[in-house]
């Protein structure tokens, strides 16, 4: 693999790692309104996946654990951090928060508080691309626990039946909250999706080369064939379900960290040790400064709620086309 590309992957993945760790510190200080579901362990996979996408026509939807995806799609990190902190400069002025990052302008349509909720809408983004002929695809990312939700199996079937360019990503980290994937899931992910006649590949996120190839092949397949495909990505969950969770239910599992694997890979591919250190420290600095900058911003407050209250009011036509009529 090209060392320049490896360097880019490394920078981005390290950036996401640092970004989330920084936010975790803020959370410990009580500065984050909600619970943080960190993507620790999934950064490398997500960065490589998103590097195959074109934010001008593709759209990604993600789960509750989507900080990394939003950043991997190049969403402005200050806006992401401010959103997570619930502040005015956030993507949605702090209205959405950690589980509701929406940045369609950078190809990240939405993350979601409902397990599986983000998946059907990806079929819609794919349909738009198809009907409007943009050449775009939709990518939807969800977990092994989500995989059993009815909305997801329905959407896979629908995408197959209507030939929609959707790439489904099952991020299998072996756990849904405290429940093992092996306990919750009958059969195997790959068999289940292949039984729908959908192309599917499984990849270990510690196999950087394979991740690069599989994400490349599958995004291209979906784009070229206009039909769905699935990647099951084995990613570790390096922390609790959310930051600060009592993880007593976890035994001591030791799993390699794909970020370290990527580092080693870069080293072995010819990136010099100091170049790597430089990348990592730049990533950390950039991430820290994005979060710090975000944290300095104002919280949004009453006037924004007043605006929305007026807009959505049960007795208000604001925001609605009042075709030829008076505004009631």
């Amino acid at each position, binding site marked *: 693999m090209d060392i320049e590309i490896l360097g880019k992957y490394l920078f981005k993945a390290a950036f996401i790692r640092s970004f989330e760790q920084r936010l975790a510190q803020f959370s410990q200080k009580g500065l984050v309104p909600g619970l943080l579901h960190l993507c620790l362990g999934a950064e490398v996979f997500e960065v490589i996946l998103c590097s195959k996408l074109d934010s001008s026509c593709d*759209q990604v*939807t993600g789960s509750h654990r989507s900080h990394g995806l939003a950043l991997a799609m190049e969403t402005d990190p200050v806006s992401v951090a401010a959103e997570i902190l619930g502040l005015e400069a956030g*993507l*949605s*002025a702090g*209205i*959405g928060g950690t589980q*509701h990052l*929406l940045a*369609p*302008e950078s190809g990240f*349509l*939405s993350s*979601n*508080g*409902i397990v599986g*909720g983000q*998946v*059907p*809408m*990806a*079929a*819609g*983004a*794919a*349909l*738009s*691309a198809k*009907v*409007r002929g943009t050449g775009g695809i*939709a990518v939807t990312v969800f977990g092994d626990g989500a995989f059993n939700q*009815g*909305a997801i199996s*329905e*959407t896979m*079937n*629908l995408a197959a*039946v*209507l030939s*929609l360019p959707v790439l489904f990503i099952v991020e299998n980290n072996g756990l849904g909250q405290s429940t093992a994937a092996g306990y919750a899931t009958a059969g195997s992910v790959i068999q289940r999706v292949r039984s729908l006649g959908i192309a599917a590949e499984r990849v270990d996120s510690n196999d950087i080369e394979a991740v690069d190839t599989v994400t490349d092949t599958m995004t291209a397949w979906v784009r070229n064939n206009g039909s769905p495909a699935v990647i099951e990505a084995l990613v570790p969950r390096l922390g609790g379900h959310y930051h600060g969770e009592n993880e007593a239910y976890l035994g001591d599992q030791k799993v390699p960290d794909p970020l370290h694997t990527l580092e080693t890979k870069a080293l072995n591919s010819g990136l010099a040790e100091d170049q790597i250190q430089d990348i990592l420290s730049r990533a950390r600095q950039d991430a820290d400064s994005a979060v710090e900058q975000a944290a300095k911003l104002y919280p949004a407050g009453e006037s*924004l709620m007043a605006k*929305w209250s007026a*807009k*959505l*009011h*049960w*007795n*208000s*036509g604001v*925001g*609605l*086309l*009042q*075709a*030829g*009529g*008076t*505004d*009631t």
Partner: protein
Amino acid sequence: MTAISFGDALNRTLHDCMAADDSIIIAGEDIAGGAGIEDSDVELGGVFGVTRGLAARFGTGRVLDTPITESAFVGMGLGAAATGLRPVIEVMFCDFFGVCFDQLINQAAKMRFLSNDRIQLPLVIRTTMGAGDGSGAMHSQSLHALVASVPGLRVVCPATPADAAGLLKTSIASPDPVIFMEHKGLYGLTGPLREDEDGHIVPIPLGKGRYVRRGTDLTLVATGAMVQEAEKAADILAVRGMRCEIIDPRTISPLDMEILIESVAGTGRLLVVDEGAAFAGFADAVVSKISQKAFAFLKSAPVSLTPPHTPVPYGRALEAAYLPSHEKIVECALRHFSK
């Protein structure tokens, strides 16, 4: 002014809108019909015929028959709406909202808000509502207030062909998700269509109610199929010397409070008749809002007339006992307002 049935008015509007705007697509179960059947060339056009002729005219690229998976295709609709299309999705009966409710209340309803208005969501969910045809407990519900109680959803309940057409046109143009509820009992109702000089359907704004008739003694509020019952009741009450004013708000959300207050200011009496929930339904919402905003005008206690707080029964006599009717409206009006 053409006389046309409620169902045909909707069909006509869908034809017109789809012809005028390429970004409108429609999807649902059996809305073209016969999908995948080899010798099938006859369009079903939906179980109530409202989507007749659309697949033939606009092609199956824009008129999509779906599997029976409401969560998936309602969600597809909202995803498409968020990314440049204007989908009109059919959920055959509003009773089926149960199987796709997350996509309605958490996804469609909240997306504009959660994006702080960076995303517009021009999504219409067409569905049917209402009892009276022996369809039983899971094909007869009137869930208009249930969805209207969810912030972010707009809810429309037309009662005439003209309103059906004009409101559907506006709904399709709306940047907010709209739940468009067609009462099954109205499909056959005929009436004039309102067109402008170029023959275009005249759009009707959301949030603008309609005086069905003027009167001085009692304000009767009704939507959907109940409007006709209210009219029949008003005829009978007129003979008894009670002149009813009938208001059809036409949209549940936004709700035209001005017309309601104006009317109650004139009559001082309020009777809301509704086919929906007996508790925390449309009737309670109107009674509550009027009691709060127009208390000073009320000469006596406001009254709501709804079905009992039970699911919809099946047998004919049971269903008749369940549904509000003009007889029950008359009885209720006389009991509460005749002194």
